[in-house]
C-alpha cells in the first residue's frame, strides 16, 4: 500500500520489544476466561495500580471451614508458589483470555510480573490488550505448549526466551517455532505498540475520512 509508511513518531516511552527472557510459569487448562484472570469485583478501581496481587485471585484462595470459622487459605495455584515468584513468561492453553474486554486482566498479569504470554491460542481482544501494554502473545502448537508447561513446572528457575522477531521460543537448549501475529510483531519490534501518537499524526486525513461519511456532521 502506497501510504503504508507514514507512521509518525513512536511515543518516546514505548521501547521495542524484541525478546523477553525469564523464568516460566504454567497455568494449565483451555478457555481460561478474564473472569478467572481477574474477577469482576477487582474492577471497581480508578487506576490499574496494585492489580497484580489479584491475578487469578479466586483460584489462589479458597475458603476452608474449621469448627465453624471460615478461613481463607492459599491453594497450590502456581501464582502462589514462591518458586515461581520471579517468572516473567506465562505458558497457557487454548482460547486464553476469552470473555470480557477488560484490560484490567493483562494489566494484572503484567503488574504481577508477566512480560510475555505463550499459548496455544488467544482470544483476540485479550491479545490486542496485551499488545497495547507491550506484552507479546505468542502461539505454539498444542504439543509444544504441553512440553513447555512441563518444563517450567519442573524447573521454575530456568530461563525461557521468547524471540518476537525470530518467532521462536527457546528453553533447555532447544528452540521451537512459534507464531506471532504480523501486525503485533511489527508494532512490538519497532516500538510502536503505544498507538496514540501514531494515530494522532494525521489529523487532516482523519477529518477527511470523517467528512466523507454520510452520517457524521462535518467539522472544519
Amino acid at each position, binding site marked *: *500500500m502506497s*501510504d*503504508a509508511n*507514514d*507512521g509518525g513518531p513512536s511515543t518516546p516511552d514505548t521501547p521495542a520489544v524484541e525478546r523477553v527472557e525469564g523464568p516460566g510459569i504454567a497455568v494449565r*487448562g*483451555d*478457555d481460561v476466561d478474564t*473472569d*478467572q484472570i481477574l*474477577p*469482576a*469485583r477487582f*474492577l*471497581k*478501581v*480508578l*487506576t*490499574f495500580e496494585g492489580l497484580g496481587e489479584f491475578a487469578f485471585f*479466586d483460584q489462589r484462595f479458597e475458603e476452608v471451614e474449621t469448627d465453624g470459622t471460615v478461613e481463607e487459605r492459599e491453594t497450590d495455584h502456581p501464582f502462589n508458589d514462591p518458586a515461581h515468584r520471579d517468572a516473567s513468561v506465562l505458558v497457557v492453553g*487454548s*482460547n486464553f483470555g*476469552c*470473555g*470480557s*474486554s*477488560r*484490560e*484490567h486482566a493483562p494489566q494484572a498479569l503484567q503488574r504481577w510480573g508477566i512480560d510475555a504470554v505463550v499459548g496455544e*491460542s488467544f*482470544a*483476540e*481482544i485479550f491479545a*490486542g*490488550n496485551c499488545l*497495547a*501494554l507491550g506484552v507479546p502473545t505468542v502461539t505454539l502448537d498444542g504439543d509444544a505448549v504441553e512440553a513447555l508447561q512441563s518444563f517450567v513446572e519442573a524447573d521454575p528457575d530456568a530461563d525461557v526466551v521468547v524471540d518476537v522477531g525470530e518467532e521462536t521460543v527457546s528453553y533447555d537448549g532447544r528452540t521451537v517455532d512459534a507464531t506471532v*501475529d*504480523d*501486525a*503485533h510483531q*511489527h*508494532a512490538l519490534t*519497532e516500538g*510502536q505498540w*503505544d*498507538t*496514540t501518537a*501514531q*494515530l*494522532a499524526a*494525521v489529523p487532516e486525513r*482523519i477529518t477527511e*475520512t*470523517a467528512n*466523507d*461519511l454520510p*452520517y*457524521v456532521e462535518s*467539522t472544519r
Partner: protein
Amino acid sequence: MSENTLYDDVWDRHRVRTLPSGQDQLFVGLHLVHEVTSPQAFGMLEERDREVARPDLTHATADHIVPTDDRSRPYGDAAAESMLSELEANVGDSDIAFDHPDTGRQGIVHVVGPEQGRTQPGMTVVCGDSHTATHGAFGALAFGIGTSQIRDVLATQTVAMEKKRVRRVEVTGELDDGVTAKDVILTVIRELGTDGGVGYVYEYGGPVVEAMDMAGRMTVCNMSIEGGARAGYVEPDETTYEWLRETDAFAEDPERFAELREYWESIRSGPDAEYDDVVTIDGDAIEPVVTWGTTPGQVVGVTEPVPDPDSFEEGEREVARRAQDHTGVTPGESMQGYPVDVAFVGSCTNARLSDLRDAARVVRGREIHDDVRGLVVPGSQRVAAAAEREGLDTVFRDAGFQWRAPGCSMCLGMNDDQLVGDEVCASSSNRNFVGRQGSKEGRTLLMSPRMVAAAAVTGGVTDVREMSLVEADDAEETAEVTR
C-alpha cells in the same frame, strides 16, 4: 479474503490509512463509554495532555456498578460511588453527553445506544466492553476494545485494528414455537465452538434471522464474542429502518432519515458478496436450550441428555469433566428438573421490552416457586418505563419477582446482586463462567428469558413449550409501544 460484503464496504469507508504495522487506522462513528473501563483512559489522556477529539461522537452511561435497589446518593458502596463520580467529572470536563441515572435514559450501554437511535447501519461503533458486538444487529461494525484503545479513540476518534475474515452464518428454516433468538445463538456457539470465530466476524443471515425483530437480532449479535468472533452483524432491512424511524435520532427529522436510508441500503452485502466461509445452521431443528457447563458452548437441548465427557475429543474431555464437577449435572440425563435457586431476567443480551414481555407471558397469573429468588432487571430506564406502562412490573411483582432499577446487575455481580455460595441461577445473561455472577461456587445456567421464567415458576429447568402462555389483555396490548 472477503469481497463486497457489508463488512468490506463499511471498513473501507472508515479506513483513514494503513499503519506501518499493517493494521488499519479506522475512524470511529460512535464511541460508547461506561464507568468501569473508562477512568484509566481519561487518566492517560490527561497524563499526555490531550483532549477528547470528538465529544459529539462520544456517549456515556453508567451500568456496571450502579445499584438496582437503593439509588440515593452517595451510593452505599463507596467504590461504586467513586466510579460514578469519576465518570460524572470526566464527561463534564469533556462535554460528553451522559445518560445519567437522573435523566430517565440510563441503562446498559448496549441497550441505550440502539433505543435512542444512536446506533445506525454503516457505522463503526466501539466501546470498552466485549458485548459491543450487539450493535451489529443494525448493520454497524461494532467492536469491544480495551482501555488503551479507549484512550486512542478519545484522543483521535480512530483506532488501530486488523481486518478479519467474514463468515456468513446462515440460519435456515423457521423457528418452532417457544424457540427464541437466544436459543439460536447458543446453538450457533455449540456448533462452531467458543473459539470457532477467532479470526472472523460473523454475518448472520437466512430466513430465521430475517424474520427476527431487532431485539432478537441484538441477542444474536451480542453473543458473537462468546463464539470467539471479533464482531457480528446483520444486514439492515425494513425491520431495521422501522426501529430507527421511531427513535430520538429520527422521530422529528424524517428528511435526515430518508437521506441516510439511501446510505444504509447501499452497504448491504448484495449478490456479488464473497465470504471466507459460509456455515448453515438448520433453524427447524433448534429447540429451547440450556447450558450444562461453564462455557457458553456447553449447551444442550432441554430434552436432550447431558453429554458424557468421554464423548468429547481428547482436548475437550478434561474441560467438560471439570465443568460438570462444578455444575453437578449428570451425564445421560436431561437438564429438565435440575433445581434452581435464583432466576435472573436481565443483561444486555435479554433485557429489552420484548424480552420482558416474553418472560411475562409465562409468569402472568402464576407464582414463582417458594425456593426461588427472582429478579427482573430491565435494560434501561426507558425499557422499565415502557414495561410499567404495560403493567409488566405488576405481573412480575405479583408472581413474586423483585422489580429492580436498570443496570448490569447479576450478569457480572459488580454490585450487591450476586449469587451466594453454590446457588444455581437460571439466567438470561451471556456468560456462565465460574465466578461470573459473584460467587465462585455459584452455578449459572444460560437460557432464554422465557425459559428463565419457566424455571422460576417450577423451581427447576423446564421445557417452556409445555407451559401455556398467557397473553396480556387487550388494554395492555395496545399500550404505547416504546423502544
